[in-house]
């Protein structure tokens, strides 16, 4: 049976000043091929000025459980938000 080519995740920076954003994935056997294929697949209309490709298996991802624990933890810390503090209106903008 034929072997599947490597899967890569594609990230595109649409313009300077913005971060790279995940746009999808492609198959390629090496990094040059991955870059070329990402360009042809995801940037046919000037969508970006820079592309990152990362082999999907090298990305370590959280599970939804990890994340909900982390969120629960920060939900207790409402004092991290400016709206937690009562400042009289006559103090002016702060």
């Amino acid at each position, binding site marked *: 049976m*034929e072997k599947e*080519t490597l*899967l890569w995740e594609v990230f595109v920076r649409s313009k300077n000043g913005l971060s790279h954003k995940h746009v999808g994935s*492609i*198959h390629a056997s090496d990094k040059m091929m991955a870059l070329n294929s990402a360009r042809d697949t995801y940037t046919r209309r000037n969508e970006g000025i820079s592309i990152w490709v990362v082999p999907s*298996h090298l990305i370590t991802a959280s599970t*939804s459980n990890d994340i909900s624990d982390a969120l629960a933890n920060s939900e207790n810390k409402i004092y991290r938000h400016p709206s937690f503090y009562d400042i009289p209106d006559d103090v002016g903008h702060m």
Partner: protein
Amino acid sequence: MYTQGLLDHSEETEETPEFLAAFQKRIDQEEKIEPHDPMPRAYRKTLIRQISQHAHSEIVGMLPEGNWITRAPTLKRKAVLLAKVQDEGGHGLYLYAAAETLGISRLEMTEQLLKGEAKYSSIFNYPTLTWADIGAIGWLVDGAAIMNQIPLCRCSYGPYARAMIKICKEESFHQRQGYEVMMTLAEGSKEQRDMAQDALNRWWWPSLMMFGPPDTESSNTDQSMKWKIKRFTNDQLRQKFLDAAIPQAKRINLTIPDKNLKWNKKLNNGRGGYSHGPIDWEEFWRVVKGGGPMARDRLRARKKAWDGGKWVRDAATAYARKVKR
């Protein structure tokens, strides 16, 4: 290999009533479901089937139009058609990638298509006989596809919805270029007008069939609506398409090949809409089951491309191994 890390999803969801209710609640609250999230097996299976069929349709859909690239009447039309067919290839790839997040590999999907086990839109089993067919496909077939695809941008499964947003943005030029081809022919010589009308005659009914069987006979609609994979029923989408396409045909003085076409004041909650004559569902099922005039050619062409590309894939893999060392 790709099932590690990013795409590591467990399919060991135990489908207790509590789990199913919690999942439905997420859907009802318009939350998006992402690849890592636990989901009912049937939700995953429905999406794999729908997204892979959609991807295959994009890829097979390159064939009827590709047929006219070398014979496009002007350089402009040729450049446009090339760009359109290239987009369809891209759309197929976005969709295969979206389906892969559900735990099926692109290779498996490709093999299902080549073995004739997977379906694709039966519209592509009709032949493109004249240049006007390229106009009719862009206008009607892409027009019908857009009707279907716009609600899919709000599909509950995140990767599918995101792929559809990109596809819809790119697709709108497809319909406009097709209508422009038809408009140019319709304003041309008598032969050109006749050619445009003939293409409309042949593509009209298959385009209406693209929305699938009527709601009374569509087996998957209810559950898909509940899971917000689908947002409108087949008949609702077909109605939207009719109401949009009929004035467009009138505008360029072409005649819709349906003697029973009528304005019906009661449709669309009293706003009025067009009602159409009976659709030949026997033809639809015959073509779905592989009876279209081009069914064999389409699969043969896909198989030829896949087999012909094997040495390239092998060489690329060998090269990657060599540079790694």
